[in-house]
């Protein structure tokens, strides 16, 4: 191992709590080596805490700043970023929250965090051309569909989009939200520069699940049709208008 790599590994240890091997490699003077290393450790924690606070604002509001900071600090030591693109940091936070023993009654918290993560992913997903009505062939039964790269489905026993909504600054005051029996199936995606979500019925949820797996439309419709609430023309219409589907490369290439 090169001396540089060894130094990097020791330094990384200092950032996450272990000063083993590094202190004697650093010049200490009026400010000892430990104090200098601590500045980096503090910066690492503070900057990632800020990243998590920006990505999970409602989660933070629900548990309060102190509990959020304590939890986020534990998470960022446990699971530091794997990419220098910070918009990609925090995907493991909902699962981390779910594993905490003391959510003090906030059982829905991991699902709120999962919803906020989906919003973040949708915000930063790559841009692609959208499938347009005129791209559709006359017989669309055998057609397969590509969902927009921002599109994500979430299923939760809690009314997470309602809880999220009442924590928005412009939201009117709501006295209470009914938790029991308020499960949601959600599609989160981005149209243009605007992140959107839609509450799916059972049939729509199934249709999108099948299409996302590459199942042709007629088979996907049959699968979705077992749900009484499924209304294909209405559902397909808002999905197509809403930019839920990407324009397949085959169409983009033949049009070029």
């Amino acid at each position, binding site marked *: 191992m*090169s*001396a*540089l*790599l060894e*130094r*990097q*590994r020791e*330094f*990384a240890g200092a*950032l996450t709590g272990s000063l083993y091997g590094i202190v*004697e*490699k*650093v*010049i200490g003077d*009026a*400010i*000892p*080596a430990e*104090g*200098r*290393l*601590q*500045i*980096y450790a503090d*910066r*690492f924690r503070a*900057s*990632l805490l800020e*990243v998590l606070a920006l990505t999970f604002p409602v989660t933070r509001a629900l548990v309060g700043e102190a509990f959020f900071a304590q939890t986020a600090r534990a998470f960022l030591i446990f699971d*530091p*970023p*794997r*990419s*220098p*693109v*910070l*918009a990609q940091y925090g995907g493991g936070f909902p699962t981390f929250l779910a594993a905490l023993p003391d959510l003090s009654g906030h059982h829905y918290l991991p699902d709120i965090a999962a919803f906020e993560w989906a919003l973040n992913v*949708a*915000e*930063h*997903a*790559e*841009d*692609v*051309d959208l499938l347009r009505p005129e791209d559709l062939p006359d017989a669309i039964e055998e057609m397969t569909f590509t969902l927009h*790269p*921002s599109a994500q489905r979430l299923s939760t026993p809690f009314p997470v989009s309602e809880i999220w909504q009442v924590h928005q600054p412009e939201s009117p005051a709501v006295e209470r939200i009914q938790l029991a029996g308020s499960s949601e199936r959600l599609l989160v995606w*981005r149209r*243009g*520069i605007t*992140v959107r979500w839609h509450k799916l019925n059972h049939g729509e949820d199934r249709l999108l699940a099948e299409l996302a797996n590459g199942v042709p439309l007629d088979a996907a419709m049959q699968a979705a049709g077992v749900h009484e609430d499924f209304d294909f023309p209405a559902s397909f219409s808002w999905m197509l208008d809403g930019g839920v589907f990407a324009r397949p490369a085959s169409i983009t290439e033949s049009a070029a």
Partner: protein
Amino acid sequence: MTDQKPIAAPTRETLARDATTGSPAPGIAAAILPGLAPERVGIGLRPPHHQDLLDTRPPIGWLEIHAETYMGGGAARHYLEQARALWPIAVQATGLGLGSDELPDTDHLNRLARLVDWLEPALVSEHLAWVGVDGRYYNDLLPLPYTSESLESCCRNVDIVQGRLKRPILMANPASYLRFRESQIAEAEFLSRLSQQSGCGILCDVNNLYVSSVNHVGREAAPAVAEAYLDSLPGPAVHQIRLAGHSECTADGKLMLIDDHGALVAEPVWRLYASAVQRFPHAATSLEWDSNLPPLAHLVAEAQHAERQRAAALRPSELPGDSPGDELTATDGDERAA
């Protein structure tokens, strides 16, 4: 999405001056300085300013972006696409960690290459630092020992990036809070040799330089140490100067400066800037804020102040006597130094 080149709007033509004035390094200067007039100061573009910038189109010279903020799609890319039609753009990458023993991450380099191919920026810069190891990233510019071993790996990494991007990049001096006992090469010398061996240019961040100097030798000795540092940089290789603010903290009861980009440029940094401008008159200047982000108009006013400071520094008989604090309360947006 469209992939066409930006239309050169009239503003771009009027803002961009002949960048070959001054005394740039022969060869690479022309390749990396198209459209950045040294007398016009650029500002760091941050997402909270996107809408205001496009609505008000303030009289700024150019924009410097964080590459990592614009690697996805959506709103960030949407606003950048409009901004690039109005101003020259420089790209500052922070995620490649070219000071690492490890090779630059291929996925991340590819993301940067796609952004640079699309944007065709005037400059691309990285930092003399590492950012991660063993697949983990620490979201900071971390220090490396300045040894011949690390110089070798840094040259190798800069070569890889320049080869992939098919253009020279600039390497910036980092702010640092510690030094390694094993370092054998002074940082300015390290950058000089890196530039010589890899063909990269140098970005002289005068705030980082001041912050590091205070943190390493104390406030009293810092200005002289920083001036000596400027003296030992190879002038023709310096193509950009960066300005920013810092904050103060105490470590074990002693003063440390923190490079948080969350304050007005400090008075000693303005003095260092004047020295840097005199030494590197062909270099473009940028000003950046990251924390405590002020309204865009404040940034624009501070950038205009920098333009006046720069012009004054190049007229030695009329050294600036104005205080930046007083002047920044003024809102005369059209006054130009050049």
